């Protein structure tokens, strides 16, 4: 017999049964309810895409992460006389935006985001207006903490922030604080974003923050990733963002015209 621990008997069996009994009562069923995870709603990509063609199909190709198809859709739209700015803002970015919305609702996952961002960049290059378009809301710098080589989280944030109309300059992984200061001076960004997955690397953000202060540069510094939390951010004037969506909200709050 297993031990009569709370975990052994109550947590494990009785509590489980008790929960089931309650479910049965609630549902008015006679059979036990199996432990299944709630079914997720089917993704509604259609509703998130722009209404008019050909922008709709451009957005769909981006959301589907199809690089070549995105390129050719952009090409034919340009031939049809639609200007590059419209294609980028109303087509490409809307597609990326749609997939990031699905991602936030756990209806799309990292593979989809990565592919969509590849398609987005390819499409942007095709219409040759990337810089002009993305200047509209400002520049943000993004990097992972010195010593941290994990870049997947950073890439997701970069793609989603880019989709929301900011120009993202990616400084790469494991970035020396000195290089960050130089980049901040050079690009004069709206904000600096740092991602850290390893707790032992996150103190690099404090170093960068102190160096910025020493240089009298006042810039919002958004941090996130598995190693960061609100308590850590409070040690300096850092802003903690729990997910890519939060980063966008914070950035939109910083943007003067919003």
């Amino acid at each position, binding site marked *: 017999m297993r031990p009569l621990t709370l975990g052994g008997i*109550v947590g494990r069996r009785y509590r489980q049964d008790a929960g089931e009994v309650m479910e049965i009562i609630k549902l008015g069923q006679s059979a036990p309810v199996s432990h299944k995870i709630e079914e997720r709603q089917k993704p509604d990509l259609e509703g998130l895409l722009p209404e008019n063609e050909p922008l709709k199909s451009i957005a769909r190709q981006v959301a589907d992460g199809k690089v070549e198809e995105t390129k050719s859709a952009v090409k034919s739209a340009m031939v049809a006389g639609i200007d590059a700015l419209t294609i980028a803002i109303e087509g490409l970015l809307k597609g990326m935006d749609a997939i990031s919305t699905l991602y936030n609702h756990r209806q799309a*996952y990292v593979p989809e985001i990565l*592919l969509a961002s*590849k398609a987005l960049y390819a499409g942007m290059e095709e219409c040759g207006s990337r810089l002009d378009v993305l200047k509209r809301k400002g520049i943000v710098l993004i990097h992972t903490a010195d*010593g941290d080589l994990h870049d997947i989280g950073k890439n997701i944030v970069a793609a989603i922030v880019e989709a929301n109309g900011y120009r993202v300059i990616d400084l790469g992984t494991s970035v020396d604080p000195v290089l960050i200061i130089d980049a901040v001076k050079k690009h004069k960004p709206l904000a600096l974003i740092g991602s850290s997955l*390893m*707790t032992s690397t996150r103190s690099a953000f404090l170093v960068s923050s102190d160096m910025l202060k020493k240089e009298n540069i006042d810039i919002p510094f958004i941090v996130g990733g598995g190693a960061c939390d609100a308590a850590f951010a409070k040690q300096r004037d850092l802003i903690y963002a729990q997910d890519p969506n939060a980063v966008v909200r914070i950035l939109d709050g910083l943007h003067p015209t919003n």
Partner: protein
Amino acid sequence: MNTKKRIISALLGGRVDRIPAWIPVVSVTVDMMEKAKAPWPKAHSDPQLMAKLAAMPWELTRMPSTTIPFCLSLEAEALGCELDQGTVNRTPSVKKPAFAGPADFEMPDDLLERGRIPVVLEALEILQEHLGDEIPINAKVTGPFTIAGHVFGVSNFISWIKTRPEYVHQSVELACEVTKELVAAFVQHGAETLIVSDPTSSGDLLSGEYYREFVFPYHKDTADTSRAPMVLHICGNTKELLPHIRETGFDAYSFEEKVDVMAAKRILGDDISLIGNVAPVATMLQGTRDRVTEEAIKCMHDGVDILSSGCTLSPMTPLENIRALVIAAEKYRLAKTPDELIREFGRGLAIGMEA
């Protein structure tokens, strides 16, 4: 019941006198490195130092963990990835992928002589000789999905799920051979329990369906490969993966605090022992002893079979917090009289009603 028996029994879902505390993930800290005079990164590549450091959790805090290697890059390095060696409080990590696609991947004949693998094998022998009577000698193997991510580049590899699913299957199958070969070698050299750590297959990156399709067959294969008790560890929010993990055949599942213990118990039932899940950063690193105790009791209340930290401890974790985890497990009193059981049953019912 001695420590070793208790842990192995709990791992296999058997009879125990109390819930054991045992951290199957890496639990060495900077304080331990100082005491053992075995600092990282030196201890990653010297068998004597590695064994000495791995024995420290037991010697200094009575936490019966000996998990080696300390990093997840052992396999990737042996397969030819370039590494960043890390520092005293940072594990080595993979700098660059080694291959562009599964066609380039060559399974080395001399895998066990490559990189730091011989170091780990020798350290296991030393540990087995010195501590084998008291505590289970635990070794860590990187899971196939994570190895594949390392050698092919994570972003690249994850994208293949959509673009070239056959590549993913080929790569993970190849990586799985590496995992299985290491499992066999570790057991042969003295490891009694194994933890397969596969962070890249986390629910933060993959959906349940993707896990089922691209990871599950290889986890199952790994779990079937050895006679030693095997633990699966996946970081992050793995709620959607739980119904599949239940069927992998692993003896135990170690998970992070992002997954609620009671919710996990309801899905996993008694098919797989639960190991967890005191928060490694918010509680173990930053919390006080009281907070650790409080959270440990909650975990045991909610139904973990082995009390542990939810993930690898930060190297800066204070020793007294690890000690607090050990003491919490020792002191936690089991409900014994019928009265107590009825009271607890009522509590369980009430909690069920809330949910």
